[in-house]
């Protein structure tokens, strides 16, 4: 197989990796915030459920979670899943997993805010929703940005775990090509792709951080 063919094939897989990455962020960043609210809820049963959810998501391998999401409906519930469920399962698994991590990052950020900010907002007549959206959240985002960047970089590499349920993203393809052609080349190319992807992610996040550095 020519190198060019290999790169073209892997590039296709790369687009799928990018899709996993993007959709995971799109789903898990907002969901993580909701989970964080549940985790900080004064309603104890909700807090326990969310705590349990977080500990399962963080305490078991993502690969295993993907398998459960993919095979679970069929083996546990007897549901016949459609042909495009493979991709859906990947996204569900990733979103649920990353939401748990993001939730804890949000929680750390929210709890680091001083009571004074809430009190000042309350005295000035801000509603609870306004206080959170206008006063607290912007400051929290600035504080947690480095941790979010960290998770995003991990996520780029984690997309390769979709190979566990044979979803044809870049790593799955690389493995296939490598074994059929008996060469390490696909792995080298995939590695370069991952590295460049992460370089871009880090670069963009650095810009975002800079943009938010107009205040302390």
């Amino acid at each position, binding site marked *: 197989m020519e190198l060019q063919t290999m790169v073209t094939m892997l590039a296709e897989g790369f687009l799928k990796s990018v899709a996993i990455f993007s959709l995971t962020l799109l789903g898990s960043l907002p969901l993580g915030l909701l989970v964080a609210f549940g985790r900080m809820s004064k309603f104890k049963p909700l807090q326990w459920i969310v705590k349990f959810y977080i500990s399962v998501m963080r305490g078991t391998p993502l690969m295993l979670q993907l398998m459960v999401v993919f095979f679970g409906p069929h083996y546990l519930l007897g549901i016949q899943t459609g042909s495009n469920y493979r991709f859906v399962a990947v996204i569900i698994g990733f979103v649920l997993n990353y939401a748990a991590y993001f939730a804890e990052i949000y929680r750390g950020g929210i709890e680091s805010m*001083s009571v004074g900010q809430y009190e*000042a907002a309350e005295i*000035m*007549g*801000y509603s609870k929703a306004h206080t959170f959206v206008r006063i607290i959240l912007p400051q929290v985002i600035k504080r947690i940005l480095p941790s979010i960047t960290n998770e995003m970089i991990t996520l780029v590499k984690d997309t390769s775990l979709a190979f566990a349920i044979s979803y044809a993203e870049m790593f799955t393809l690389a493995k296939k090509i490598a074994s059929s052609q008996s060469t390490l080349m696909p792995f080298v190319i995939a590695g370069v792709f991952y590295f460049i992807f992460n370089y871009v992610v880090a670069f963009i996040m650095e810009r975002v951080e800079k943009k938010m550095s107009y*205040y302390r």
Partner: protein
Amino acid sequence: MSNILTMNNIQKSFGELEVIKDISVSIKKGDVLSIIGPSGGGKSTLLRCAAMLETINGGSILYGDKKAAWTEDNGKVVYAKGKDMKEIKNYFGLVFQNFNLFPHFSVLKNITDAPLRMQKRNKDEVMSEAEVLLDKMGLKEKAGAYPYQLSGGQQQRVAIARALALKPQILFFDEPTSALDPELTAEVLRVIRQLAEENMTMAIVTHEMNFARLVSDHLIFIDGGVIVEQGSPDAVLGNPQMERTKAFLNKLEQ
């Protein structure tokens, strides 16, 4: 003249600790009340109860003739709700010891955001009022600055402007200069004094005795959760009657 704020038989405990045992105090329109006393005596807590940042365990709070909180026959304290509470909260402003400005807002936005967003007032009006306030605070050229770029004294003056922009009937100060150097303290006190001359109704928790003597119409000395002594500032500070007041004032002079 009518009372802006009336607090009757206030009680407040944190768990087992009774911080305010039984305090009644009222403030007339245009008056300045200073609250002095040792740390842990309950003076800040009293102010925070008035500002609804703490919930009282007994007694009643009135703003004008509006009931903000009262104790029912069964001993349960009830607070006003909904629209009533919103109206009451418009009555007062509070200046904190550590300013609590919003760091991600510019000076101007700190002052105008709440009047615009929460009071939904006319933009031109709010903007021109903010300019006047900044000028009055001697911060005209700092409108675009962010809080971290300001000295403590400047930050506190922004905080005062921010509170005034909401047009409160009464302004509370919770140890407004305790986080400041003596030099910066002076500029903040000057502003408060100016407000007193303009007949702004204020209640000030402070450790600055000379200042209290200068600006206040009435002074209360709180210790152990009760008012130990009260009266005109000259009387309480110049000629205290109670042993605890004397001891406290003597300690300050050392």
